[in-house]
């Protein structure tokens, strides 16, 4: 590699890194506790849920829906989801069908007696705070897209770092750590070694993180493009009010019949991001470990209760669905989560050592200056 090529790649590495390092540090630090949010929640909530009326018949979904609207007068239903391990139905309501996340209200209902189930303790909302900071920094869609851009800059920094690994390691054997040398050399070696061995994980978590920042955009496009033919049948009708809607319970039953070998996951009500203005979108997921991440909606006319059909998600929505487990690391038990955390810590070391090496090179830190024999990092 020529001297000028090295200089160009080094410039790319320096600038793409400087642009994103502070945000990446924030993402790594907030991401670390979020990896263990399930364990955190379980530790804070040791008491088990007991159904109010365990031997009675379960309430049907229309009854649960009525309970939730009595509880939030004047609001409309947005989503309904189902706990896997207990008879609890979660209903999200809001002032309008297209209410933004901040205006939504989430409530849990005991399906055996319709009573409200207390929200799990969250140590003052710390986990919610971290998740919000991690996904959009409390700035909504612009914040998400900004973090996506930081992620792209980071991926570019990683790739240019791999290119620079070549001139740096050309004359050395793999795994070099010159511990007896100056702090700068030591950290340069750690930066290069940790950077190159975490490459696979970092590209997967970084790349899927960037894809996840596009979730609103992707689902919005899917709704507008792939469901357009369903909307076309309804030239000028408004989103039906809850009183006008057909039985949800029958709609869900019909949807489950229309989708064999799939499991009910959640219902999106008309007018929101996940449905059309006129349908219940009843989402089911596959029942194998791979397909359980892939969801497909059965659309049911929300007024007549007629099944409009199962709509497989297009490839870009499936890519998004598979990006989520690959970003969260929550798909292979606690050992994978621990490895996720360790690799996250190593990434923090790469980020900070990179910043340190840059500061030394610019003379901002007293200490060993770069000798001319060494390749700029």
């Amino acid at each position, binding site marked *: 590699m020529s001297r000028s090529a090295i200089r160009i790649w080094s410039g790319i590495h320096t600038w793409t890194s400087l642009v994103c390092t502070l945000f990446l540090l924030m993402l790594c630090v907030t991401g670390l506790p979020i990896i263990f949010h399930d364990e955190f929640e379980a530790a804070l909530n040791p008491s088990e849920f007991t159904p109010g009326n365990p031997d009675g018949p379960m309430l049907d979904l229309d009854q649960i829906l009525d309970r939730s609207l009595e509880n939030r007068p004047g609001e409309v239903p947005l989503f309904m989801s189902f706990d896997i391990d207990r008879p609890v139905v979660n209903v999200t309501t809001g002032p309008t069908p297209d209410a933004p996340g901040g205006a939504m209200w989430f409530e849990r209902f005991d399906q055996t007696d319709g009573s409200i189930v207390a929200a799990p303790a969250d140590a003052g909302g710390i986990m919610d705070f971290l998740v919000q900071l991690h996904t959009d920094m409390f700035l909504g869609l612009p914040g998400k897209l900004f973090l996506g851009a930081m992620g792209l800059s980071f991926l570019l920094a990683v790739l240019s770092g791999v290119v620079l690994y070549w001139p740096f390691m050309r004359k050395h054997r793999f795994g070099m750590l010159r511990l007896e040398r100056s702090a700068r050399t030591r950290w340069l070696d750690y930066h290069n070694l940790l950077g190159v061995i975490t490459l*696979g994980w970092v590209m997967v978590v970084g790349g899927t993180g960037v894809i996840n920042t596009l979730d609103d955009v992707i689902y919005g496009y899917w709704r507008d493009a792939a469901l357009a033919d369903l909307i076309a049948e309804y030239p000028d009708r408004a989103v039906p009010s809850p009183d006008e809607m057909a039985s949800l319970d029958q709609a869900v039953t019909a949807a489950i019949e229309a989708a064999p070998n799939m499991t009910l996951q959640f219902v999106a009500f008309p007018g929101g991001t996940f449905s059309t203005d006129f349908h219940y979108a009843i989402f089911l997921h596959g029942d194998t470990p791979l397909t359980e991440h892939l969801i497909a909606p059965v659309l049911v006319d929300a007024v007549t209760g007629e099944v409009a059909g199962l709509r497989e998600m297009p490839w870009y929505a499936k890519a998004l669905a598979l990006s989520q487990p690959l970003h969260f690391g929550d798909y292979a*038990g606690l050992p994978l989560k621990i490895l996720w955390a360790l690799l996250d810590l190593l990434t923090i070391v790469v980020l900070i050592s990179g910043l340190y090496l840059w500061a030394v090179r610019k003379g901002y830190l007293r200490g060993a200056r770069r000798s001319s024999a060494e390749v700029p990092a």
Partner: protein
Amino acid sequence: MSRFWRVFGWPLVILGISLAGLVLSLIGNGVWDAAGWVGLFSPLAILVWARFVRARSRT
């Protein structure tokens, strides 16, 4: 062995093992999950080797 493979051989092996593990765990549970553990353990094992075996033998 060419210079390219001497520099990028091990990094590519670790990259391959990590990626294979991440994807294989997604396919199933049980043994498949263990593939992911092995895949992501490989960079950590290399780090321990470089710090405590390789670096020590040099001095």
